[in-house]
């Protein structure tokens, strides 16, 4: 898994790439929680994530809950069918705000 963090138009954007599994989710957790700590508007860009398992989902839930607890906004960018499938199995498609791309996420109502 690779990652990249940048700031754009008041958003912190964390881009994750590759597979988020038991081996890589601790790295994803560290990046996301560090970014949540310094951000009130967070986009988690998973457009190029090709696989996620329950350990990766747990990481997303933890980051989401930490962001919400401090009154922040958090949204997700998801494209890969396998990733969307796992979010749906966890019923997080009804909890997370999910967009098709960063542009639409930035212009969406909070």
């Amino acid at each position, binding site marked *: 898994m690779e990652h990249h963090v940048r700031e754009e138009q008041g958003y912190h954007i964390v881009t994750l790439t590759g*597979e988020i*599994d*038991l*081996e890589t989710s601790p790295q994803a957790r560290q990046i996301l929680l560090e970014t949540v700590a310094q951000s009130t508007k967070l986009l988690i860009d998973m457009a190029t994530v090709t*696989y996620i*398992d*329950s*350990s990766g*989902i*747990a*990481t997303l*839930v*933890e980051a989401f*809950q930490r962001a919400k607890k401090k009154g922040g906004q958090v949204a997700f960018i998801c494209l890969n*069918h*396998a990733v969307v*499938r*796992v979010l749906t*199995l*966890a*019923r*997080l498609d009804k*909890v997370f705000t999910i967009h098709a791309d960063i542009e639409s996420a930035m212009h969406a109502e909070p």
Partner: protein
Amino acid sequence: MSQQMHLPHESVILEHQFPARAKEFGHTRAMTRMVLNNHGWRSDKVEDIVLAIDEACQNIIRHAYQGECDNPITLRIEREGDALVVVLEDQAPAVSPDCMNPRALDDIRPGGLGCHFIRQVMDTVSIGPSPTGQGNILRMVKSMH
């Protein structure tokens, strides 16, 4: 421990043994995808089976071996009629079948989703002690249709 990969007798389409370590999972997923794709399985079903195997291996590490170790996990995938049978064996002390019970999803919190995913994507799931007297055998079945 070195990895072993076999392509043995007719109904068995993959047999793979690997140490109970998370770093082995990526290779196991890639190999499973390749073999199932080559056998003509639809990609969405392949991804479901890959997810179930991955989650089951995590459970073996967490609940059977109580952590990562060099003890083996053996994955075997067989064709049985129009279904695929996935068998995962470990050499850990016997675990309670209750370890395969999913938690309620109403409570949004991190963790505990692996068994839910397995039950959702596979048609039948059963776990029991190995007939050799050492280890556990998890059997998961998914229909091709």
